[in-house]
């Protein structure tokens, strides 16, 4: 008896929807995402939007770091470039929000390509430092190019609209976020199974060998930086439009670290991992906030001890993940899937 999910061709192996069951599950998940805003309150929708922005940014970084092996500590800077581009285009040049989004991505992509140039000569820790420099250079620009960015005061951004339809509340903005998340994740999932995606993986595994088999390192490394930064720019533009204000405080170095944490916890080299990581890093502190509220209620007067503990627990969870599942949440998901693939006849 044929038992399990076997593929007979490479095309089958690369399919996104590999079985009827997968299609069904994804369909149910999409249905959940569509129904969710009607059942959730403003706070839950706020968090859902934040997860959405994090997913877009994390997918972008995973394409660069997880798939192409180019580590970047400047992701927050590209998020900032996109955010400021959108804000300036909308407020100064009267662009519509919808037109500002691709421009935000393109300007961030351009910035990414410039910062990515050192990647042709340096690798590993050296590239880390080069991208770190980008983070600080852009932070400096955001603060000091006052005629354009309004410096520390920041720019107030109007809410998006289509004709008379306005996107003001968390619920209304959720649809915009969902649209871009689906688009971004769908494109990334397709990209990694294309010629470009395979080139990225070849560069990650051994760039010298990749060059020998005919992969143009210059082209693909810069492409990876450009695509990754494009995602970051779009995430930034959406994020600040949602917040209705952009200031340099939004893009600190720690944000770059958070994005790295998302893809490491989620799973390097996995689009699904980026999603899991973004959800984990965004949602866990909120759940810990709930826990600390319960503790506050039942142990009044001990807030100074328990409230800061959530930071410790969060850190501990990340460390435990790295120790017990270095391949991330995506690998845990794979194991669960494999368990059920043969269930109940596992051996």
């Amino acid at each position, binding site marked *: 008896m044929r038992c399990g999910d076997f593929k007979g061709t490479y095309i089958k192996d690369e399919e996104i929807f590999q079985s009827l069951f997968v299609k069904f599950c994804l369909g149910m998940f999409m249905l959940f995402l569509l129904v969710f805003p009607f059942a959730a*309150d*403003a*706070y*839950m929708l706020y968090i859902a939007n934040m997860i959405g922005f994090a997913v877009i940014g994390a997918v972008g970084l995973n394409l660069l770091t997880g798939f192409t092996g180019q580590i970047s500590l400047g992701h927050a800077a590209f998020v900032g470039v996109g955010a400021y581009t959108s804000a300036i285009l909308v407020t100064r040049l009267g662009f519509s929000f919808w037109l500002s989004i691709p421009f935000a991505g393109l300007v961030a992509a351009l910035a990414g390509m410039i910062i990515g140039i050192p990647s042709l000569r340096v690798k590993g820790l050296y590239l880390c430092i080069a991208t770190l420099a980008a983070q600080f250079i852009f932070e400096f620009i955001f603060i000091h190019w006052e005629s354009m960015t309004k410096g520390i005061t920041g720019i*107030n951004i109007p809410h998006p609209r289509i004709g008379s339809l306005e996107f003001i509340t968390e619920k209304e903005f959720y649809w915009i976020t969902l649209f871009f998340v689906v688009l971004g994740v769908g494109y990334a999932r397709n990209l990694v199974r294309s010629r470009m995606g395979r080139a990225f993986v070849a560069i990650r595994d051994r760039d010298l060998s990749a060059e020998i088999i005919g992969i143009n390192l210059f082209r693909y490394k810069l492409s990876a930086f450009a695509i990754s930064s494009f995602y970051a720019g779009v995430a930034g533009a959406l994020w600040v439009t949602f917040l209705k204000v952009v200031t340099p*405080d939004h893009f600190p170095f720690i944000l770059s670290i958070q994005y790295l944490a998302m893809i490491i916890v989620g799973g390097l080299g996995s689009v699904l991992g980026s999603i899991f990581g973004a959800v984990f890093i965004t949602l866990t502190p909120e759940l810990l*906030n709930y826990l600390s509220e319960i503790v506050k209620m039942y142990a009044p007067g001990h*807030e100074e001890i328990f409230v800061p503990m959530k930071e410790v627990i969060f850190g501990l969870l990340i460390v435990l993940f790295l120790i017990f599942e270095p391949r991330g949440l995506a690998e845990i998901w794979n194991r669960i899937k494999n368990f059920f693939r043969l269930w109940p006849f596992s051996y």
Partner: protein
Amino acid sequence: MKKTVVLVFSFVLCLGLFTFSKAMAEQNPTICAVHPFTGPFAFAGIHGADAMEDAINMANEEGGVNGKKINYYWADGEYKNDVGIAAFKRLYAQHKPHCMWAQSTGMTKALAPEINTRYKVLYSAYTFADIAASPDKNPYMFIPGPTYADMFGVLLKYIANEKPGANIAFFYSNTEFGREPIPAGRKMCKEMGLNLVAEEISKVGGVDITTQILDMKRKKVDYCIFQGFVATPIQTVIKQAKDYGLKCKFLGTFWSTEKHLLDQLGPMANEYMGVTAYSYYYQDEFPMIQKIRAWTKKHHPKFADYRTQAYMQVFMGTTLFVEALRRADKAGSISGDSLAKALQSIKNFDVGGLMPPVTMKNNSIPIGRVVRGNAKTGKFDPVSDWISLD
């Protein structure tokens, strides 16, 4: 597996019951707050959270809002904008508060458009920025004290009286907090006939300030006003200024007029002055300070020796929340609009010496007092009466 399911189910059930039971108690006047309980501003948030709880408990003991108990809920915002805004939205979704206290200027700026159009709650924060004192733009926001620009005004008024035509330097951090009152300060210098001869900028926590000190010496600065720092580099500037022979008086605004700075200055504390908005914890000649001291001794004995000025700020803010709630309730209903109207109606309101009798002006209280450090006692002594900017 079964155990896990039972555990998860129990957790969800507890969470549900917890939320439900809290929702049932929401009919009363409710105040929510996002305090920076952890992170770089925790020195203010820890005391602030207590201050709000204490002021509300005291008010409830005195009958709450015309007999209705005031509810109080708070969350930690970690002094990060995104965490703070998430906490704000969570508290709002759970408790639908009438009054809201937030953790920073950044959060205030981010929330201002939504406070005006969506939330419509009486709002204040750990900020003295102008944005919260503009009732024409932000009618629901207020500052329970002077703005940073007002504080500069108080200091400059004091200097203009002491030494007309003095040379002034502004020494500020390259942050929003640091730059906020600088344009207003420049204008006031001109109006009061003072010479603004130098503007020095430094990083928060910066230690290499030799260039700035030499520049101030060259420009013969008589008074240097700090803005945008809590401690470092203020103590470094004062110590190094002496080494370089700079004869100048140093003054600071609210956040740098705190006891810990005098402790760090040691014997040089006498050379530091500042402007404060509230009476200090050790000024127990005032009935409200006596009340706070007695309450702290009873409920928070580990802070019985000292409460920071941040405590006084939040206590004052909460007192105004409660007063606005009482007035709005008496007038018929509690809503954002009725609270804003009630707040603006506050005139000569006695706060037991925490401040002089309070009159709201442009949703702030433009009054301050100049104080000088005392190296012997490690306390600030008042050197002026309350200076009002009318």
